[in-house]
C-alpha cells in the first residue's frame, strides 16, 4: 500500500468529492490534489474515474459547475455543492459512520 495508491472502496469517491467541495468550490485538479493531501497520499484517483464521478454528481444535481479563472489566470471549471448535495453528504457521512462502526465491531470481536 505504501508504493501504490489504493483503490477506493466502491461508491465512496462520490462522497469524498462532495466532502472536498463542502470546504470550498474547487476545479477538477484541485479536487484530486485535495483528496490526495487529505488522505496523505493513499488515494490518487485517475482522471477517468474522477471526471466520471464529477459528471455523475452533476447529473444528479448534487454539484454545479461553472467556468471561472483560476488563481494563476487559467480558465477552469469550478464545482460548487448544491443544497441537495450538502444534504446528501450529511446523510452519507452518517451512514458511513454507522457502517464503519459496525464493521469495526465485527472485526474486533474475538
Amino acid at each position, binding site marked *: 500500500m505504501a508504493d501504490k495508491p489504493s483503490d477506493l472502496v466502491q461508491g465512496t469517491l462520490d462522497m469524498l468529492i462532495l466532502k472536498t467541495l463542502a470546504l470550498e468550490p474547487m*476545479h477538477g485538479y484541485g479536487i484530486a490534489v485535495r483528496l490526495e493531501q487529505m488522505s496523505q497520499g493513499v488515494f490518487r484517483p*485517475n*482522471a*477517468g474515474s474522477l*471526471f*466520471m464521478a464529477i459528471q455523475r454528481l*452533476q*447529473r444528479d444535481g448534487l454539484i454545479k459547475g461553472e467556468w471561472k479563472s483560476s488563481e494563476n489566470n487559467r480558465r477552469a471549471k469550478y464545482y460548487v455543492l448544491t443544497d441537495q448535495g450538502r444534504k446528501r453528504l450529511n446523510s452519507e457521512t452518517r451512514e458511513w459512520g454507522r457502517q464503519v462502526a459496525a464493521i469495526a465491531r465485527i472485526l474486533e470481536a474475538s
Partner: protein
Amino acid sequence: MSLLRNIASGLRSLFRKERVSHDLDDELNGFLEMAAEEKMKRGMSRRDAFRAVRLERGSLEVAKEIVCSAAWESFVETCWADIRFGLRTLRKSPAFTAVALLTLALGIGANTAIFTLIHAVMLKSLPVASPTQLYRLGDNNSCCVMVGTQEGGSFVLYSYALYENLRDHTPEFGELAAFEPWTSDLSVRRNGSAAEPYRGEFVSANYFNTLGVRAFAGRLLAPPDDSASAPRVAVMNYHTWQQRFGLDPSVIGSTLNINGVPCAIAGVTPPGFYGDTLRSDPPDFWLPLATDPEKWRLPNAAVEWLYLVGRLKSGFAPEPVQARLTVELQEWLSSHREVIPDRDLKDIPRQYIHLTPAARGVEKLRTDYETGLHLLVTLSALLLLIACANIANLLLARGSANGSQMAVRLALGAPRHRLIRQMLTESVLLALMGGAAGLYVAYAGTRTILLLAFRGASYVPIDARPSLPVLGFSILLSLMTGIVFGILPAWTASQSDPLDALRGAGRSTGDRASVLQKSLVVAQVAFSIALLIAAGLVTQSLRNLEGQHFGFVTDGRLIVNIAPSLSGYTLDKLDGLYQRLEETMQQIPGVLTASLSWYSPLGGNNASERVYIQGKAPDYRWTAPSWDRVGPHYFEAIGTRLLRGRVIEERDRPGGLNVAVINETFARRFFPNEDPIGQHLGMTDVSHSGDYEIVGIVEDAKYKDTRGPAYATFFLPLLQTPPGESVRGWVGAIELHVAGKPENLEPAARKTLADVDPNLPVLNMVSFGEQVAHNFNQERLIARLTELFGALALILACVGLYGVTAYGVARRTNEIGIRMALGADRRNVLGLVLRAALTQLGMGLAMGIPAALAGGRVLVSQLYGVKSYDPMIIGVAAAVLAACAVLAALVPARRATRVDPIVALHYE
C-alpha cells in the same frame, strides 16, 4: 427532478455534441497542465512533467472515453452509429436485403393479419361505455326458439314473461335488456319506391341504455317504446345511414315503411357500434320487441327465444347475483308449470343461470371460428419460424464471407459483445423494415381473409386497417423476429478466431457456421413438410365436403329468397300468390322446373318439431325431426330423387287429402320394420297423429349440417293444415332449375317477381352452388391459407437449400478442383454435392413427417372424410418437396461439375 436533469443533460450532449466534447477537452487539458505545472515547480522539465502526469493519472484520451461512455447518451450514440452502419451494409447487398425484406414482410404480415382478426374477434370489447359491467345470462349460444327446460340445465333463452320477472326482481342490475339472438329480414320502402331488403334486430326498449350507447343523432329507444300502442319507431345503424342514405340528416325523424308499417326513424347509433354480437351483416335497424311481426311469441310465456344482457351496478359481484337469479328462475318455472311440457317438469330443480362476462357481447364469431383461428395462428407462426431460419441462413452465409473482416476487428480489440450488438442492431433494423412492409401485407391479407371467411356477406364490421394494438403487436413481433434470426449468426460471427484472419483462412470444411446452416435447412424442410401435409389434409377435407353427395343437385339451380310476410300478405291471399308464382316462374324462358318451399337446403334455415305417429307411443329419445313445406315439383327442382310412392303434387291443396313425404332416415327411425307409406303422422300432440298420410319416401338430403348424416325430415304441402289451424311456414324460397348459368336468369326472375307484385321483397338471389359454398367458408379459408403458407414454406425451404448448397460449392471450389485433377469425373462431383443436399432433405423429412402425424391428430376434428394420416397425401407432399429440393440443389451442383481444375487450383 434528478431524472429530468439527467435526461436534459444527456440530450444536450447528444444535440450539442461538439460543444460538450469541447468543454470536456478543455477541462481535461486544464487538469493535465495544472498537474504538470505543479511538477515543473518542483524542478521537472516540461516533457518529463507531462509524462509523469500521464503515468500517474492515465491518458487523457482514455479518460475522455471513460467519461463519455459512462453516460446513457453514449448508448444512444453507438446505437445510432450501428443503425447507420447497418443501413450501409444492407444497401451494399441489395439482393440479400430484398429477399430478406420480402420474406419478413410475408412472415410478419401473415402473423399481423391473423392477430388483427384475433384482436377483433377475441380481444376487443364492444364499443360501449364500461363494457366490463355487462353480463350475459347464460353461457352458450343455443338458438333459436325453445320450450321447456334447457339443455344441460343452463338457461340461455328466455320468454318475455320470464324476462320481465327477472328484470323487475333483480335490483343488482342497473338495467337488464332482452333481444333476439338472430337478425331478421326487413322490407323497407322509402317514399313509395320499391321495397328493399335490410337486416333488423328486435330489442327491448332499454337495450341502448343497458349497453350504454348514446345517440349519434336523434334519440335511441326509450322504455315507452316497449308498449304495443306506442308510435312505431326504429333506430338506424350509422353504417347504414352512411352507405344507404348518404348521411342525409333529413332521414332522422322521417318515416320509412318497414314491413308494411310506417315507422319513424328516431335516431342513429354512433359510428362503430354494431350491436350486441360481432357478426357479418349486422342490423341496419333496431326495433322494439313489441313490433316483432311474429306476434305469437311475445305474449306466450312458454316460448323461449330471447337473450338477456344486464349491466351490474358497481359494487356487486356476479357470483351472488348468479345464485339469486337461479333461485328466481326455479321459482318462476315452478309457479308456471302450465308452460313447461310434462316431460320436463322433473328437470326444473336442475335449471340454473350462469352469468358470463359480456364485455365483448355475445361471442358468436369467437365460438364459430376459435378452432380455425388457433389453427391459423399455429400455421402462421410456423411460417414465420421458417422465414427466420431462412434469413438466419442468409446471414450466416454472408457472415462466413465477411468472416475475415470480423476476425480483423476482433484482433484490433473490438469487444465481442459490441460486435454482437452491432449485428443484432442490423437484424432488428431489417426486421422492423420488414415489419413495416408487413403492415401492408397484413392489411391486404386481413381484407382477403374477411372476404374468404364471410363470402356472401355484404358487410363485416371488422376494420382491416391496423389499429394501435395491432401496430404494437407488429412492432413487438418484428423486434422479436429480428433477435430470433439475428442471434445465431451474430454469435457465430463473434466467435471467429482472430488468428484465422491472419492465416488467410476459409479452408476448413466443418466449421461451426456450416453445421448451423445445415441444421437450419433441415429445420426448414421439417417445417415445410409439416405445413404441406397439413395443407394436403385440409384441402382434401374441403374437397370431400364440397364434393359429397348432398342428396340434391346444385348445377343449374337458382335460389330466390323472398319474404311475403314482410309486405303485408295475409293468409287468405297466400294461395293466390303461390299459384301465380308457380305459373309465372315456370314460364320464364330457360326455366326447366320452378318450385316453392318454406326454405331451401343449406341456406341457413332449419325447423324442427316433435311428431306423433298414429298408433305409436311418443318417443322422446330422438331429437325432434326437421320439417319443411314444399310445392309441386320441389324435389325435381332441386334434384332430390324419389325412392318410393309419390311426391307432393298440384292436387295436394287445402281441402284435399293431407299428405306428407318423408326421407329415408325418417323412415328408418320411425318405421324400422314396416312400410311407412299409408301411415299417419302429426304435430303438436298425440291427438293430431292422424293429420297427414305418408305418401312417398325421398332420398336423404342435407339441409343444415354438412358433416353429420342428414336429419330425419318430413315434407308437407305448402298450405295443408289440420282443420282450424293456420299455416305455419310461409314460402321463403323459390327454386329454379334452369338451362345454362343460373346467374344469367337473375334479371328475368327479378322482372317476373316485380310483375307478380312490386312490393314483394326479394331478399337475395344466389345460385344453389354458391348457397352451398357459403357453408364451407371457414373450411375454405383454412384450406386456402394453409395452401398459401405451404407454398411459401416450400419456396423458402428451397431457397434455403439452394443457398447452402451454392455456398458450399463456392467454398469447396478448390477441393473440387483437386478431386477433378486427381481423376474424379463429373458424376462423382455431382454426387458429392447432391449427397450433402439430399442428406439434409432426408433428415428434414424424417423429422417433419412424424411431427405432421402428431399435428394431424389435433387437426382430425376439423377434417371430413380424411384420416389424420393419409399415406397418399404424405407421399405427394414429400414427393413435391423432394422434387423442388433436388431442383434447388441441382443448379449449384451442375455449377460444381463445370469447375475447371486449373482455374480452381490457381485460385487464391
